[in-house]
C-alpha cells in the first residue's frame, strides 16, 4: 500500500504553473494518477480544459511525453502510439518499459470520443483510458454532455420558465466500458487518493486495455467555492451519486460503502447548478434525482453481490 510520504517523494510529472482553475478536480486526479507508477509514459489528451491549460506554447506542464491531436480521437491517437511502441520495441529501437495513458473529459469521452474509445478498448491496446468527468463541456463554457446529471443547469440545459435543467439522467459509461470485457475498469474520486492511486497502478499494470472514470468537480461549472472540492467529492461518494468500484476480469467489487447513505440533496444543495431543484415547483425533479441514484446504486450492489 502506498503511503502519502512515498507519493510525495515521487517526481512531479505534471508541473505547477499550468492554467487550470483553483479548485479544479482534474489536476488533482492527474497528479495522483501519474504518481501511481514509475515507468516512462506517453500521455495523450483530448481537447479540453486539461489540454488547453497545460500546453500553451511555448510552455508545457508535462514532464512525460505528451500528445494532443483532436477532441474525439485521443483513444485512437494513443492506439497508434502504442502500436508504434510494439513495432519499435520489436526491432530494438526502444528499450524502456513504457506506459500509455489517454485522457479525456466527459465530453471527449462519453460523447464525441465514444466511438474511438470503444474501438480502442475492443482492440485491447495496452493503454489506460482515464476520463476526468466534470459532467459538462466546461472548456467551451459549461454545455450539457451525456455525463451531465438529471436536473443540472448548464448553458445548453438552462433553467427556463418551462424546463428545469437537464431532462435526462447520465449515461453509465463505466458500465458500458465494463461491458467491453476489458480486463480492468474502475470508478474513483480523488478525495480517496489511496484508492485512486491503487486503481491507477492496477490499470497501468494491466496487460491490455483498462479504463478509469474519475469524478473531477468543476467549481465554475458546478458553481461552488473552489475551497470545497474535496468536501463535494466526499458528498458525491457518500450519497452514492458516484460510487467507487472496480471491475477486474469481469468481477465487480465495491471499493467503498458509505456507513450511512446520505440523501443526494446534501450533494446537490451545495452546488449552484442544482439550486433550482430546491424550489417548490421542482420537487418532482429532486425526487427523480434521488430515485435515479437509488436505482443505479441498487443495480451496482446486485452486480457486486451477483
Amino acid at each position: 500500500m502506498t503511503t502519502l510520504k512515498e507519493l510525495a517523494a515521487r517526481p512531479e510529472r505534471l508541473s505547477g504553473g499550468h492554467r487550470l482553475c483553483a479548485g479544479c478536480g482534474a489536476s488533482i486526479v492527474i497528479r495522483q494518477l501519474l504518481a501511481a507508477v514509475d515507468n516512462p509514459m506517453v500521455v495523450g489528451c483530448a481537447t479540453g480544459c486539461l489540454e488547453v491549460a497545460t500546453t500553451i506554447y511555448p510552455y508545457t506542464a508535462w514532464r512525460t511525453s505528451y500528445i494532443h491531436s483532436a477532441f474525439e480521437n485521443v483513444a485512437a491517437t494513443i492506439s497508434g502510439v502504442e502500436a508504434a511502441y510494439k513495432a519499435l520495441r520489436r526491432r530494438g529501437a526502444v528499450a524502456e518499459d513504457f506506459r500509455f495513458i489517454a485522457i479525456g473529459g466527459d465530453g471527449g469521452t462519453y460523447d464525441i470520443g465514444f466511438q474511438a474509445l470503444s474501438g480502442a478498448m475492443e482492440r485491447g491496446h495496452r493503454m489506460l483510458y482515464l476520463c476526468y468527468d466534470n459532467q459538462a463541456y466546461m472548456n467551451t463554457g459549461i454545455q450539457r454532455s451525456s455525463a451531465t446529471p438529471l436536473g443540472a443547469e448548464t448553458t445548453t440545459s438552462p433553467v427556463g420558465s418551462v424546463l428545469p435543467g437537464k431532462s435526462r439522467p447520465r449515461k453509465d459509461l463505466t458500465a458500458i466500458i465494463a461491458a467491453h470485457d476489458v480486463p480492468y475498469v474502475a470508478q474513483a474520486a480523488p478525495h480517496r487518493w489511496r484508492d485512486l492511486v491503487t486503481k491507477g497502478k492496477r490499470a497501468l499494470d494491466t496487460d491490455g486495455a483498462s479504463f478509469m472514470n474519475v469524478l473531477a468537480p468543476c467549481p465554475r461549472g458546478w458553481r461552488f467555492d473552489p475551497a470545497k472540492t474535496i468536501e463535494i467529492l466526499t458528498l458525491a461518494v457518500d450519497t452514492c451519486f458516484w460510487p467507487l468500484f472496480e471491475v477486474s476480469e469481469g468481477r465487480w467489487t465495491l471499493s467503498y460503502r458509505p456507513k450511512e447513505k446520505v440523501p443526494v440533496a446534501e450533494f446537490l444543495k451545495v452546488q449552484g447548478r442544482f439550486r433550482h431543484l430546491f424550489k417548490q415547483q421542482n420537487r418532482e425533479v429532486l425526487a427523480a434525482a434521488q430515485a435515479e441514484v437509488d436505482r443505479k446504486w441498487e443495480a451496482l450492489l446486485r452486480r457486486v453481490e451477483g
Partner: protein
Amino acid sequence: MSRAQQNRVAITGNEAVALAMKQVEPDVVAAYPITPQTDIVQYFSSFVADGEVQTEFVTVESEHSAMSACVGAAAAGARAMTATSANGLALMWEVLYIAAGLRLPIVMPVVNRALSAPINIHCDHSDSMGARDSGWIQLYSEDAQEAYDNILQAVRIGEHPDVLLPVMVCLDGFIISHSLENLKVLDKEQVTAFVGDYRPDARLLDAKRPITVGALELQDFYFEHKRQEAEAMVRSAPIIEAVADEYARLTGRKYSFFEAYRMDDAEVAVMVLNSAAGTARAVVDQLRRRGVRAGLLKLRVFRPFPGAALAEALAGLSVVGIMDRAEGLSAAGGPLFVEVRSALLGRPRHPLVLNHIYGLGGRDVGPDQIEQVFADLLRAAEAGEARQQVTHIGVRD
C-alpha cells in the same frame, strides 16, 4: 546507384499499392476498409497473417481513427501508413490537417472515388481534390506502375528533413485499382535500401527526452508555424525532383512534376490527372496523324502546385483544355482549372483556358469524349474566344 534488376508481374492497381506497402514495411499501418480501396487492406492483412511483414496492423473502427492512429504512431517515432477512398478521406478531413500541421510524414494511397451524395463507388477526383489545401503533398498516378513508383518515392519525399509533410498517392478507383496490369517491381531489399530508415529528430518514445506534441498555439505562435509549414511545401519541390532522379537511376523510370506529351509544337492541348492520360495520349496521336498539332499535359504533382513550370509548358499553346474529374461546385470551374488559369495570369502571353468537367461518378471517358474536347479547343482557337468557359462532357442534358 546502379540499375536494379526488376521483376515483371501482372497485378491490379490495388495489389501494386499493397506490394509497395509490403516492401516499405512500415512500423504501423492503421486502416479501415472502403470500396474501392478495400483490397489494399485485405492484402495487407494477409501479409501480416502470414508473417511476411513485421508491421503493427491496427484495424481501427473508422478512417478518422485510422488517421489519428497514424498521427500517434508517426509522432511516437514510427513510419506509418494508411489507405482510403472518398467518404473515408472525407471522414479523415480534420486529422489530415493535424498530420500536416504536426509535420508527420505519413504516406497514404488514395484510391479515387466520388464523394456522396448521391452515393457512388466509382472513380472521380472529388475526394482528393477536397483535401488539396490540407498541407499534404499530392502525387497522381496514371496506372498501377506509377502508383507503385509513387508510393516508394512518397516515403522519401515526405520524410526528407527539409520537408516533413504527409504524402497522398492518388490512383483511379476501379479503372486502375481493379485492372490487371503488367508492371516492373523492385525486390524488397532494393526498396528497403531506397526508402532507408525513418529517424525523426524527436519522438514521443524517447524516455530520456520526453516531448510535448500538439501544444496550443494562440495569436503569438500559430502563424509562424503555419508559415513554416507553407515553406516546407515550397521546399518539397526540389526534393521531389531529386528523389525522382534517384529513382530513375534505380529503375529507369523517370518522373517529374508533369509529363508533356507532344507539346513542343502543339497548338492545342488537354491537361489531365491520372488514368485518363492514357486515353488522351491515344487521341493526341490520332489527331497528330490527321495533322492537328495536339498535345497532352499529364500532371503528376498537384501539391506542391508547379505553377511556374506549367505556365512555361503551356505558354506556346493557343488554347488549353483543363479536364477536371471533379466539380468544384464553385460556379467558377473545377479545381485544376482554377489553379492552372491562375498560374498563367500575369504572363505576357498565355493561351485561352477552357475547362472540361468529365467522368464524375465513374462515367466512362472514351476517346470520343476527348476528341470532343479537342474539337472545342480547335473551335476556340479559330474563333479566338470560347463559346463557353466551363463545359460538362459526357453528360446527358
